[in-house]
């Protein structure tokens, strides 16, 4: 018995190593297009177009960046997507990018250029506006950031030195005060001076906001090389022509440039009090928001536009699935000042406005948090966690109508939304039984027929 057990164990041990060894995905050397598209909201993570994918998707009328490189690609089974591995091989080519129309006629030749992109605080505090610069403008922008950085460093150094000087003066003053007190002599005047020093020190210890943080929402990305593609909607062909005039193998691709339709539609972000960091979007105009009424809602409207689902999914990640027949709503920005008119079936009519809130962890052993209004005096050093209009659901309310109101003269379309408060545990026995009504009718019919037959007999 023991021998058999040891035999099984040794067999298992012999078989284990290949099972336990990490399964390294196979890498393929390919010429790919690295794509940094503008997705309507931002220049995100970017994507790439491998050799098997024949079409690149970009938004029209905005700067998008492409670069051609030879690298390894591999399929990562955990996420089910293809990934580039530029750590081992990342060879870029010298040459130009040619854009052809559908008939094969060359319509543009793009040269490789340096570029950067960044976002500035937009027209409205929370809606950044994105900018892309190329060539000298890109270098100038990054130089200006570097200058700001250097100036900021100088300011910090000066502040540090001043702080050290004041601290030194305060330390020596403190020793004098202690000495005087030990001797039993009057030191009140010096104490006053020490207090003044402390105030200056506290002032000097306040952090200085770097100037680029005031200017940018997202600071300029480091300079990169690529081709700036900004085209009107349409179907094109792309090819990379090397310096020797030959077309790089694997660089011929279709390019589909598409636009957005029905811009400035209003969507609503709903942040429930219990899951404030996981907003739910009510994007489709006229849609209904369902809730069980167990939590307050924090509501924030946003602007959105319609795009083709398949094109857009492939813009964000080339090679994605999507329905070419469907349109998708994507967030494009935020409206300016707004207020929300709330009407309910219980006769409530009120106008709620955007407020700032702080999420405070519950004290003691209990888990959870509370959301409290942001007060500058109390929460001075903190940034608000949440900016939205607060809507509490009152007991007995079953329907609430929301109407987003922009300031006078605002040009935003303002569709209404409806909130329905539904108890998820309810059952309607009467309606469930009423589904059996046809069977009851048949039963009655049978009885009537048998009566009739008996009568006739």
């Amino acid at each position, binding site marked *: 018995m023991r021998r058999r057990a040891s035999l099984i164990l040794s067999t298992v041990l012999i078989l284990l190593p290949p099972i336990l060894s990490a399964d390294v995905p196979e890498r393929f050397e390919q010429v790919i297009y690295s794509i940094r598209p503008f997705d309507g909201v931002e220049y995100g993570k970017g994507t790439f177009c491998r050799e098997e994918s024949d079409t690149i998707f970009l938004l029209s009328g905005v700067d998008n960046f492409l670069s051609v490189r030879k690298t390894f690609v591999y399929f990562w089974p955990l996420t089910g997507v293809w990934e580039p591995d530029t750590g081992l091989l990342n060879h870029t080519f010298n040459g130009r990018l040619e854009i052809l129309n559908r008939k094969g006629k060359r319509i543009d030749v793009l040269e490789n250029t340096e570029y950067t992109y960044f976002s500035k605080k937009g027209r409205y505090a929370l809606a950044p506006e994105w900018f892309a610069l190329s060539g000298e403008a890109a270098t100038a922008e990054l130089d200006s950031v570097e200058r700001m950085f250097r100036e900021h460093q100088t300011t910090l150094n000066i502040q540090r030195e001043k702080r050290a000087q004041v601290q030194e003066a305060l330390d020596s003053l403190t020793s004098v005060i202690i000495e005087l007190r030990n001797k039993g002599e009057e030191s009140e005047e010096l104490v006053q001076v020490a207090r003044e020093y402390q105030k200056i020190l506290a002032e000097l210890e306040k952090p200085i906001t770097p100037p680029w943080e005031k200017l940018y929402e997202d600071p300029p990305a480091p300079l990169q090389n690529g081709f700036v593609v900004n085209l009107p909607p349409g179907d094109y062909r792309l090819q990379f022509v090397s310096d020797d005039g030959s077309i790089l193998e694997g660089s011929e691709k279709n390019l589909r440039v598409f636009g957005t339709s029905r811009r400035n539609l209003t969507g609503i972000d709903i942040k429930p009090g219990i*899951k404030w960091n996981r907003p739910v979007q009510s994007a489709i105009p006229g849609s209904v928001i369902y*809730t069980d009424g167990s939590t307050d809602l924090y509501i924030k409207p946003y602007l959105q536009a319609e795009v083709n689902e398949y094109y857009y999914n492939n813009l964000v990640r080339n090679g994605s699935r999507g329905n070419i027949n469907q*349109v998708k709503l994507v967030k494009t920005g935020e409206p300016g000042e707004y207020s929300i008119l709330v009407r309910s079936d219980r006769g409530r009519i009120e106008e709620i406005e955007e407020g700032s809130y702080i999420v405070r962890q519950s004290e003691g052993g209990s888990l959870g948090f509370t959301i409290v209004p942001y007060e500058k005096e109390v929460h001075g050093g903190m940034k608000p966690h949440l900016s939205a209009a607060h809507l509490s659901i009152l007991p007995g309310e079953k329907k609430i109508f929301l109407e987003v109101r922009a300031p006078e003269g605002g040009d935003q379309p303002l569709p209404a939304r409806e909130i329905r408060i*539904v108890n*998820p545990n309810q059952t309607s026995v009467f309606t469930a039984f009423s589904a059996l009504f*046809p069977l009851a009718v048949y039963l009655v019919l049978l009885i009537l027929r048998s009566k009739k037959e008996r009568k006739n007999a």
Partner: protein
Amino acid sequence: MKSLNASRLIAGIKIKDVFLSPATYILLTISLLTAYVYIQGFVRTIEGDGINLALHPLYTMTGKFLTGLLGEEFLKRLLASGPGLLTTFTAPLPFLLFILIHSVLSRGLDRENRVVELIAYGPSNETAYNIASLITDLCLAGLMIVSLTLFSLTVLVSFNLAVRIHFVANYLLQFFMLFSLSALGIFLSTMMKNALSALFSYSTVLLGLVVLEVLFYSVTADTVRSILLPFHLILRWISPFYYFRLGAVPFSSSGTLGLFFSILGNTALGALFLFSASLTAKKKGVRG
């Protein structure tokens, strides 16, 4: 006029037959129960922050299936105002299938048993019989749509769920789709010799048209789409499902215009099938 009277009389007999059959009531009950299960299932998915399909197995399954087949956005639009729209697609299925199968089978059997021949040698003709079959189907469709609309409305309101106009519009479009589907059944059974071959050819054609329409509309790779495109370009004109899709939400967002073209398309297609059935019957003769 004679022919119209005959149609009325034959339809009366056929309707009486159908309404005395237990299958009508059983399948109508199944359709109503399906609507109830979908609406109540939706209620169970409601949380503090909206709906969570993972909370109900039926919705988890339906959600995964529809997302895989038609895309995430389709599902979002389908459930945007509640379960009403989804029930317009799921609940009628059992009864709709019953109407179509019953229509083709009963017509085929009448032909096999020479009932059609008897009518044709009498004071009427085969066209009158065809119209009577169509009237019977439309009466059943009307019964289904009225029952489902009233029942679903009652359940939706009792659960405090929203009702939107698309809900009624989709049922209306189904009525017109059934008109052309039924006419197609009549046309095919006129062409076939017996009930079984009529049913087989009808099922094959319907299945083919459904698969083509669904695949063409669904999340498919470019290669599959390019293969399907020429077939779809030609066959869509004779597909009741294509005209239905033109107006049905969430497939279409064309509003009233889509609704109008959908009704017009299916009415015209139904009339074309009926006309073709008439021509075929004349050509083949009543014993053909």
